[in-house]
């Protein structure tokens, strides 16, 4: 089983409360969760990464137990080895492209210096055509370049799985198609288990070996299944 998710969480904000109750098992390495904004997709992804602690449930990814409320197991995000691509990429604005990509390699109390970086950093810089931008700050990059930097940053850490939060939402339509193709090829090459959340059916068509729909915090069983060959 690649993904065995059972996540319950009640979130409160003022007088409103939102109940997340996601039960989902998948053998697929490419899982797409589709749903409108506010369906709880991002919260589910945060729970898998360890950034949101569920009230109850169990989370297993790639055979590894990350969270089990009944057994009081809750690995911190630092120990889960999830490659997380944030919706707006969350690049560190004060660090150059190279420093961003090498960020996870520097384990101490200081950021990597401007020349730092292992072979892996160099390899991903080259693979994503970012060599010439290595010394730029994220604020100077285009949307597509930012996404590549964020992906490279996640991949250098050799994650056990990729979690992608609306990876193409911030991009122009043309660029979206190009980067979808790139990510598709990359995932096939690396064989990394991946969960992609999106509101865009086009993402499901490209990546969805297994597509589920979420609505109001839970799986939407009534929605027609989307099968891709």
């Amino acid at each position, binding site marked *: 089983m690649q993904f065995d998710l059972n996540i319950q969480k009640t979130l409160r904000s003022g007088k409103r409360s939102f109940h997340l109750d996601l039960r989902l098992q998948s053998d697929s390495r490419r899982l797409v969760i589709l749903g409108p904004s506010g369906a709880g997709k991002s919260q589910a992804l*945060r729970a898998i990464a*360890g*950034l949101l602690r569920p009230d109850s449930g169990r989370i297993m990814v790639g055979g590894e137990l990350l969270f089990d409320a009944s057994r009081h197991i809750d690995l911190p*995000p*630092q120990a889960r080895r999830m490659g997380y691509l944030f919706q707006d990429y969350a690049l560190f604005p004060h660090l150059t492209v190279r420093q961003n990509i090498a960020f*996870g390699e520097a*384990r101490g109390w200081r*950021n990597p210096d401007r020349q730092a970086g292992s072979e892996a950093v160099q390899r991903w810089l080259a693979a994503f055509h970012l060599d010439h931008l290595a010394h730029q700050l994220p604020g100077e990059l285009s949307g597509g370049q930012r996404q590549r930097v964020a992906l490279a940053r996640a991949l250098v850490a050799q994650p056990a799985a990729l979690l992608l939060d609306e990876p193409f939402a911030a991009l122009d339509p043309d660029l979206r198609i190009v980067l979808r193709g790139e990510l598709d090829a990359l995932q096939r090459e690396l064989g990394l288990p991946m969960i992609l959340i999106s509101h865009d059916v086009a993402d499901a068509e490209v990546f969805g070996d297994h597509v589920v729909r979420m609505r109001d915090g839970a799986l939407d069983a009534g929605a027609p299944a989307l099968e891709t060959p």
Partner: protein
Amino acid sequence: MHPTWTALALSLKVACWATAIALVLGVAVGFLLARRRFPGRELLDTILTLPMVMPPTVLGYYLLVLLGRKGWIGQGLQDWFGINLIFTWQGAVIAAAIVAFPLVFKPARAAFETVDGRLEDAARVLGISEAALFLRVTLPLAWRGILAGALLAFARAMGEFGATLMVAGSIPGRTQTLSIAVYEAVQAGQDDIANTLVLITSAVCMAVLLTAGRLAPGRVGYR
């Protein structure tokens, strides 16, 4: 050394120590208030801001009550460590630090609140410990606001008068800071000394404000 320079040196020494103390505590408390939700958070913020609006003499009186020989803290310090803070330059440091504290912690809290929590999350999933990500992500993104606050705190500590006079008195060469020396000079009719002291103080304050203006948020280079 000429008394004027002694007073200036003492003022700088007191202001430096007071700013350092206010900086460390202000950053810690500002971070706590920006990032943790707990009951009484805003009440704590209000209490900690009080030194900014209370008359310095009232503050000085509180400090005398606390730090004096019969005070809660003063008596303990005297009994256990043989330390007396009243009428010492260290007492002046504490008075100035408390007056300057809100000027650091307010902008520090605001600066920490503007740091996008997702950047900290991004560091977490990359395996960076909480302490390291504070030093590598949160602090570098907040430091301009904090530094601008620290400079204002320094200027405020330099100019501290009321609380300092209450706690440390006005002993020439020992606790008589620049601003107190101005008062003493005017009282004694020594206008030439007062003129010199006032010009020096004004120059130092101008320099600090100019530097603070350059560092103020809104001139941040990235984003």
